[in-house]
């Protein structure tokens, strides 16, 4: 199918973009999900605002311990671990190669993934695990929402239709943080059946901080709080990681059945992947 007819504007400033949204426009960022939705007739906006010509939205900056990712920073940027300082850059570089393919990563944006809010999105799971903050702008002003309160369900977020997602902010990870990202998918072309990202800090032989993000383990991205609690104060060991995997799978996750993965299977995969990710993340 082809997209249905719409009007097209290409604003040159954030203010013009926000005005277009107030007039009912839908944002075109990388277009890698919007055009798909339009081909499938899942989206038929009357007005499309192409934000690709808004200067400044492509900025990626790190200062005062905070990483700010502008709305036009493409997936591809994060393939180089040096793009983002410290272990956060390492974690993003490990995660990004599991997102689609190079031609899609050349266009698609991290902010677009957060705006689209697919339950299997790798970026969305990392955003909740890392306490990211989403910056939203409209003609009414600017507000910030913690990622943990932003995702409401499949393709549903706290963003109002007239709000432009201008940036995502992440606290940088301490230099001694260990990170890992693993994913299980049916074929190279599928979205993740389960994806897990983890960041672990070990001091004096015990785990002092743990962050675990789960993609496609519920109707929205999750931070595995119950699993993290089992780890704090524990020694980094295989039994501890197995226990955390069990907690993630039975307490944190609320998997929905999919055509090739019923709930029992998904719980099994979650337990295995969480333990595996933690083992990989454990600083040696």
């Amino acid at each position, binding site marked *: *199918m*082809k*997209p*249905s*007819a*719409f*009007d*097209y504007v290409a604003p040159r400033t954030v203010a013009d973009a926000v005005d277009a949204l107030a007039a009912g426009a839908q944002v*075109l960022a990388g*277009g*890698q999900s919007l*055009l*798909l939705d*339009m*081909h*499938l007739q899942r989206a038929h906006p009357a007005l*499309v605002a*192409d934000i*690709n010509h808004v200067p400044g939205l492509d900025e990626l900056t790190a200062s005062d311990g905070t990483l700010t990712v502008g709305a036009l920073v493409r997936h591809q940027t994060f393939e180089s671990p040096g793009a983002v300082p410290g272990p956060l850059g390492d974690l993003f570089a490990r995660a990004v190669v599991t997102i*689609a*393919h*190079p*031609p*899609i990563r*050349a*266009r698609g944006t991290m902010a677009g993934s957060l705006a689209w809010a697919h339950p299997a999105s790798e970026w969305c799971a990392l955003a909740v695990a890392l306490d990211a903050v989403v910056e939203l702008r409209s003609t009414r002003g600017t507000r910030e929402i913690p990622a943990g309160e932003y995702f409401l369900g499949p393709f549903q977020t706290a963003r109002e239709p007239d709000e432009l997602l201008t940036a995502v902010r992440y606290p940088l990870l301490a230099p001694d943080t260990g990170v890992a990202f693993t994913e299980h998918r049916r074929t*190279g*072309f599928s979205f993740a059946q389960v994806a897990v990202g983890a960041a672990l800090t070990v001091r004096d032989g015990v785990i002092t901080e743990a962050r675990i993000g789960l993609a496609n383990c519920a109707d929205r991205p999750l931070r595995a709080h119950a699993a993290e609690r089992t780890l704090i104060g524990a020694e980094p060991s295989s039994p501890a990681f197995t226990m955390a995997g069990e907690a993630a799978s039975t307490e944190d996750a609320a998997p929905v059945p999919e055509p090739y993965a019923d709930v029992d299977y998904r719980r099994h995969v979650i337990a295995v992947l969480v333990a595996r990710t933690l083992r990989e993340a454990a600083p040696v």
Partner: protein
Amino acid sequence: MKITLTVNDAAYPLDVEPRRVLADALRDDCGLTGTHLGCEQGVCGACTVLVDGEAVRSCLMLAVQCDGVPIRTVEGLAGPGGEPHPLQRAFSAERGLQCGFCTPGFLMLAAGALDHDPRLGDEEVADLVRSNLCRCTGYEPIRRAITRAARDHQNGQEGRHRSV
């Protein structure tokens, strides 16, 4: 909307609806039917072209987004006298195609990657080939063809350096 597509260094002044995707504009408005459309969902990669030097899915871009931006399609690969591009020679030599439906997409995917990094290693080529679908070859010949083109390119470069 009135736009000008610049495809393989030729200008195509067009009047298109905003909803026209780049792939349709190339095929139906510019008459460049070398770019194929398979899934129209970003999955198969048959529609891959270079936009501003970057391999992208032309089914997931609007033509109006490409006004004035250099585009390269499979028709632009051959040299001025019609001699095949090293990638095209390698695809032929390694039997990198059977029905040929996927071939323009794989060629442009590989052309973009080789432009960025002429020293593509085996692992990178294997990774790259995962971007597109081929229902005939089983991918191995395509992988060999891209590797061969990369190697020929390097040998060509080194040969030139040595002769200086």
